[in-house]
């Protein structure tokens, strides 16, 4: 029967392709299986942003890859000692964390405050695991930090204060904008620190703060930036993840039209992002990479900071002003250094909430 022949041919094709596939498979799985059990293993689980988000997750992953290089560990491949797992949706957080814990990773990072609940669940199910969370503090029922979780937080308000000083001194129109991602306690730290910095050096300056409601909406960032520049602001500080990329787009097109506008970058040194129109005045860097590196190193040396709340501020070089400062005059840089010193020695306490900002304003007068 012809049909039988055709079916036979089909079966043959499937078998052959199967053999070819498995042959390829055999070759590459050999490379992967060479691993020693004794090596230190550290992994991270990202939220949906992934490690190429040009911001937070990327910075954390850079920290881990540097750590891998310094300790001669392999990174980024299946069976590497240093690895990341990306979450496609929020329900993937726990399985991803568990995956690394089950594979006996010595340390597992969760990047982002959206994973607080997930970490506390994984931590209670695996009391012997060593976990770390960035940007949040995970507490147990007794309101104390969990013993097997290291909590990494940043004093973003301090770094934001310094770029606020820069903005307050650099503005020509005395109008300054702030674009936030999602209106949350975390981004409020950026906003209030920034406003406090501006007001400290330029009490007359007006500050417009606006939130896009999303970290992944460059179009909204661009619209808001256009509105703020339209109102006369000449500097915008953005703390909005990918939404902030829209602020850069708008600033570039304004600058092409001959207007003198600036953007202050966030998280990483965003000087390059302002090119070729050169619109980045400076950036507030948040050294997630450094924090991740430090905690990995401490854990490797047998000093896992479980149950501790690590706060990275100006003093620890965890936040600060970006190294690209070519647009800032000597005077401004000196002023910035003065304030930096004052914050470090404690004579200025930078506000992080709306309430603290109000009290701060009243002390200025």
């Amino acid at each position, binding site marked *: 029967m012809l049909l039988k022949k055709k079916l036979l041919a089909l079966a043959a094709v499937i078998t052959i392709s199967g053999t070819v596939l498995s042959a390829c498979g055999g070759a590459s799985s050999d490379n992967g299986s060479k691993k020693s059990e004794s090596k230190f293993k550290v992994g991270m689980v990202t939220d949906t942003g992934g490690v190429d988000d040009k911001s937070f997750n990327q910075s954390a992953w850079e920290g881990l890859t540097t750590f891998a290089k310094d300790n001669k560990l392999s990174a980024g491949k*299946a069976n590497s000692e240093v690895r990341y797992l990306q979450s496609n949706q*929020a*329900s993937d957080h726990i399985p991803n964390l568990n*995956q690394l814990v*089950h594979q006996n990773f010595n340390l597992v990072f969760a990047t982002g*405050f959206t994973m607080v*609940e997930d970490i506390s669940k994984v931590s209670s199910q695996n009391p012997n695991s060593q976990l770390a969370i960035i940007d949040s503090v995970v507490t147990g029922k007794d309101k104390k930090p969990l013993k097997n979780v290291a909590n990494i937080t940043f004093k973003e308000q301090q770094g934001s204060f310094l770029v606020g000083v820069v903005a307050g001194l650099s503005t020509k129109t005395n109008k300054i904008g702030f674009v936030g991602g999602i209106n949350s306690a975390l981004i409020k730290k950026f906003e209030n620190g920034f406003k406090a910095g501006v007001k400290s050096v330029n009490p007359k300056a007006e500050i417009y703060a606006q939130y896009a409601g999303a970290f992944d909406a460059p179009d909204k960032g661009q619209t808001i930036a256009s509105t703020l520049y339209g109102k006369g602001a000449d500097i915008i500080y953005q703390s909005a993840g990918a939404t902030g990329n829209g602020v850069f787009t708008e600033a570039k097109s304004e600058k092409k039209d001959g207007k003198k506008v600036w953007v202050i970058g966030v998280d990483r040194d965003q000087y390059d992002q302002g090119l070729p129109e050169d619109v980045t005045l400076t950036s507030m860097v948040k050294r997630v990479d450094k924090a991740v590196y430090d905690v990995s190193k401490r854990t490797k040396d047998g000093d896992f900071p479980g149950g501790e709340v690590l706060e990275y501020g100006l003093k620890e070089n965890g936040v600060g002003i970006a190294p690209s400062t070519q647009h800032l005059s000597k005077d401004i840089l000196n002023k910035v250094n003065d304030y930096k010193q004052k914050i470090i020695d404690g004579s200025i306490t930078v506000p992080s909430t709306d309430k603290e900002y109000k009290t701060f304003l009243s002390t200025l007068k």
Partner: protein
Amino acid sequence: MTKILKNSNWFNIVVPMIAVLLGLLVGAIIMLLTGYNPILAYQSILESVFLQPYYTGETIRAIIPLILTGLAVAFAFRTGLFNIGVEGQLLVGWFSAVAVSIMFSGLPKLILLPLAILVSALAGGLWGFIPGLLKARLKVHEVIITIMMNYVALYTTNYLIKHFLYAEGEKTPNIPESASLASTLLSNISQGSRLHWGIIVALLAAVFVWFLLWRTTKGYELRAVGYNPHASRYAGMNVNNNIVLSMVISGALAGVAGSMEGLGTYQYMMINSTFIGIGFNGIAVALLGMNTSIGVIIGATLFAILQTGSITMQSTAGVPTEIVSIIIAVIIFFIGSSYIIRWCLLRLTKGGK
């Protein structure tokens, strides 16, 4: 042989199976082209899902909402309606279930748990009622309305959480134990997975849909409207009422899917910056399951396996999760083009005559 092939029931089973196989094959080719090992990848899926209790548990957990959203899409489809709004109906159901259980946390479990699920069905039903009514009375196309209602649902629930039920970490507080579907027993036998009792709810819903559609007069009416609204009207059926009813039931099923996430998987609702996708996957599950209850269960299982598998594929074979999304998309593509598969099969068998 030809006789069997001509039988449409047989086709209904074979065509999705071929679509899935082709999807996996194309997925393997993509993996080869991008330098990953497909054998290792698929092997890691099977090993984790079938041999490691934790991932088995997580897979069954992922099946639960997919069955319900799949049923929701399938149900509306039987009445000739394309409910793209399952995602939004799921979100309002999720929120309502969580809100009710937090507000009435004093009630005993026997009352609170069914109440929370019921309210989620009502909320989802309401979200389906609006497009149903607009379709029936004003002939507004349900696809457009339901898509828009998704956005309304997403941002409304976000607003409500932010202003009325906010807890640290961009989410609601956790629901009380008395409203939870979580089970220590199920969790323990699956090495600590989040498997919960919602699987029973989902299976009951599948039976309910089958019974309603195929064993009652109302179900016959609903299907008749789907086949041919004009003939149904001529036969004396109230087409408009059936359209509204179908959308309400579809929405209610989606709402219950939301309560499964709220009361089972997460025990809270987070502020979602984008859609979570379970509703949209429900469309694919319904297509794969040929809009039958049993088919939806099988389709949901396949999707859940791929979903859990994407996690182990990523960690054991290093395959990025995006590849799994591509495989799912390819499977849907082949199901969508089932006509081609059907034609090929017929060509193949004609030779045997």
